[in-house]
């Protein structure tokens, strides 16, 4: 144990006292396991304009984030906008029947898909969401989490 180690240990002790992990954060972390479920197939994120370009794509008036998810049978294209601090999602699906369910850690909401494959979900919490749908063969599919 040298002087540098001593100093880091001292800083660690101080950090725990004045800047330790909030208890609420631990509670949320413990609850995260309940969001796992074992049925369904993933829909892989293949592109994200926020990552690809490092910035949002500029739409007519406001930034729009574009995301694409794919499996062999299903594709989901999303346009995500921020509206008044919430997320508004417009999506186009292919290979999906019925409805799309938007899930957040707080709950979920189901929206219809029109004949052309479009759907939209407004007023999602800004933090994180994912989408759940059913492929033509009945397989459940889910996107990975999209963070706001």
């Amino acid at each position, binding site marked *: 144990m040298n002087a540098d180690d001593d100093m880091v240990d001292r800083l660690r002790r101080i950090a725990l006292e004045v800047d*330790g*992990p909030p208890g609420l954060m631990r509670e949320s972390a413990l609850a995260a396991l309940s969001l796992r479920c*074992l049925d369904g197939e993933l829909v892989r994120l293949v592109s994200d304009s926020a990552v690809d370009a490092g910035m949002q794509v500029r739409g007519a008036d406001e930034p729009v984030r574009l995301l694409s998810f794919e499996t062999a049978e299903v594709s989901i294209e999303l346009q995500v906008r921020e509206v008044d601090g919430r997320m508004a999602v417009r999506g186009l699906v292919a290979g999906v029947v019925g409805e799309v369910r938007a899930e957040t850690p707080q709950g979920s909401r189901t929206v219809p898909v029109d004949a052309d494959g479009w759907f939209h979900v407004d007023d999602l919490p800004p933090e994180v969401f994912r989408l*759940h749908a059913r492929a033509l063969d009945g397989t459940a599919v889910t996107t990975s989490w999209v963070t706001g």
Partner: protein
Amino acid sequence: MLAKEKPCSLSHESHPVIPSGWLGAPVRLWWAGGMSEDNARLLAAAATGDQSAWTVLVDRHLGLLWSIARGYRLNTADASDAVQNTWLRLVEHLDRINEPERLASWLATTARRECLHVLRRGTREKPGAAAELLEHLPDSAPSLDTGLLLDERDAALWRALVMLSERCQRLLRVLMASPPPSYAEVATALDMPIGSIGPSRQRCLDRLRQVTGTDEVLSRGTSIGEEEW
């Protein structure tokens, strides 16, 4: 309103790849004795819904993730978001962690990405700001609430941290994680070569000693060494 119902799914996406051949230097005692096997067992158990196994994994790594988020100078709300998103990614990947012995590094990489994502979100209103993201982080973060500290020297040391360069603050804050992270984990958390962690740590601590040893600098409250370690 969102209806309460049980969400159900699994998913994956490109996940952090931990370079093979990394050593968790310096070797630390608590990693000895089958931690990797233990991680593998805990991950497998958590994947079947075992809450107690998940609790162990959370408690084992929460301090590291929190320190990473604070190292990126996220405020409490943003840091909590970044850390929670990291847990959600792990829940998605519970049965896809190829190297359980490097779980902490996987989490560190994921946390770094989530932190950068949160920071990017904060710069949305300012196109072009992203490139300078890391050098001009928000000032809000490291808690300066030293009222809890009984020892005035500790309080002075903590306050002196903000006078270091951004990179030093980030490095030291991650090194302060409890339990202490390995250099491999720190390297992945900060996207730095593992070989640079030790020398950088030494330079940053030397700088901290300089700052705390100079009352004039302390009282002036200016940042020094902005361009260097």
